[in-house]
């Protein structure tokens, strides 16, 4: 009895701890500031879209939203492409080279990407890649390659050798085998890894903060940080901006819950 009561209380408490702040943000994006401060959890007096309209007019979220989409989509696409090619090669190579490559990429897991901010910054100043979306995409690819290769290699290794051998007998080259056997078979793993990468790229703050200063190149996290200063007292605008920044993730989470959870936990376990 006591066990059951404690269990239920704790479970409810943490669920509320998640639901209450989220509701405050969702409800707040339809409210005026005063309403947020006095009755944060009450339903808005009227479901007005005024905040959203204001945000589009004054806050300029459209450009950062577009930038974030571009950066995330291209980063994920190229990371998956490069990582799956490399992972396929590593999983098929029985020579020392394969082992060496695997260890080399694993080194990246031991060095936190954050420690490279200073050399990357100076390198990018030299290459004129600051204030450039291409620069962000390149950084994202480099930073997420090790973990992606790690996850995908372990997956490719699980594909039965016979599948490859049969294709080899039929005269298919490596690129052909990669495209028509390895890739189709690894669709769930690629999907999960892709989601994991998308979340990382969509949410990254440190590298954009350092590399981007121009307003028209900013990504959503940077814009949110700016908003904190700009609308220091206006939580209605801030909450609305948080809503806009989170919507793609929430939609993806609801639509692809399984792959989402799988992807984000695989990233943690394998990393």
């Amino acid at each position: 009895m006591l066990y059951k009561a404690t269990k239920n209380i704790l479970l409810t408490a943490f669920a509320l701890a998640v639901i209450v702040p989220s509701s405050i943000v969702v409800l707040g994006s339809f409210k005026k500031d005063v309403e947020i401060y006095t009755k944060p959890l009450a339903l808005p007096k009227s479901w007005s879209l005024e905040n959203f309209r204001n945000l589009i007019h004054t806050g300029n979220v459209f450009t950062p939203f577009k930038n974030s989409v571009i950066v995330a989509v291209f980063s994920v696409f190229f990371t998956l492409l490069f990582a799956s090619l490399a992972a396929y090669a590593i999983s098929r190579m029985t020579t020392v080279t394969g082992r060496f490559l695997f260890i080399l990429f694993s080194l990246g897991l031991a060095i936190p990407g954050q420690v490279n901010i200073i050399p990357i910054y100076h390198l990018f100043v030299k290459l004129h890649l600051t204030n450039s979306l291409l620069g962000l995409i390149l950084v994202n690819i480099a930073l997420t390659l090790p973990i992606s290769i790690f996850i995908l290699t372990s997956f490719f290794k699980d594909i039965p050798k016979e599948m490859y051998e049969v294709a080899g007998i039929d005269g298919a080259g490596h690129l052909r085998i990669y495209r028509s056997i390895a890739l189709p078979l690894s669709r769930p793993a690629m999907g999960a890894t892709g989601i994991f990468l998308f979340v990382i790229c969509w949410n990254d703050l440190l590298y954009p903060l350092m590399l981007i200063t121009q307003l028209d190149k900013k990504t959503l996290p940077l814009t949110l940080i700016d908003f904190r200063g700009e609308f220091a007292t206006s939580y209605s605008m801030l909450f609305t901006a948080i809503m806009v920044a989170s919507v793609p993730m929430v939609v993806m989470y609801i639509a692809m819950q399984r792959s989402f959870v799988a992807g984000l936990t695989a990233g943690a376990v394998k990393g």
Partner: protein
Amino acid sequence: MAVPAFAVYSFLYLYPAIQNLAYSFERWDGVTKPEFVGLHNFTYLATNDDLFRKIVGNNIRFTLLVVIFQTAFSLLFATFLLKNTKTTIFLRVIYFFPTILSSVSVGLIWTFLYNPNFGFLNASLKAIGLDSFALNWLGDTKYSLYAIAVTQVWFHTGQMVIIYVAGLQQIPADLYEAAEVDGATRWQQFKNITWPMALPTTAVVVAYTTIQSFRAFDLVYSMTQGGPLNSSDLIVTSIYNTAFSSFKYGYASAQSIVLIVVVLLVTWLQRRTLRIDYGVK
């Protein structure tokens, strides 16, 4: 086929990492020519820089708190949510939700909750008559670090619950059945079955949480920027500020080398202890 990955990785990961090591032996403001100073940055860090020592202390305290509470909570919740029923699956989905938010959003939401004047936390405390507990959470040097640690635990516990559920579901059910037949209490079952059987998962959770806590930047930057008076400064925020506010690039690189060493040391220690523990039981 590994060429594109190898090229990008070498040029934008390995090469910068080596360059970073080289910078750490230099004094450099980014404008004038870098000057080789040998181990000076490191000896200064170790002997003269009280602020950096404080920041490393902050980060160790932060990591300890987050690791202990996040692991304890997620193991507890995972034991509660082990069976796949409608309710448990629903709760797991709810718990996991913060994981998909950006850390900046989370930081800003909690800045609102913690606001001393109109924040939700203090309003609730006052509503139930606990006025004296309504503190200036982020604005007081005594609480800022802990307030951010709470946010971090809130942010990532759900993800760890999922990892634990996956791990605990591997434990054969007949172990528990046998224990029940023998009249073992819930606590005995946890102590003698769940805990030892879940140790490999615990190792993963602890290692991941530790690295995450040593890499923490976004929450601090969006909530307090390390303040007040550096009370919530962590190593990565310090590297960032040393480089991009004080323009001491060499010195910041030296700090990042310290970070690598600390992370490697701690993960190595953890692996050893958790493995030995596992072997004994």
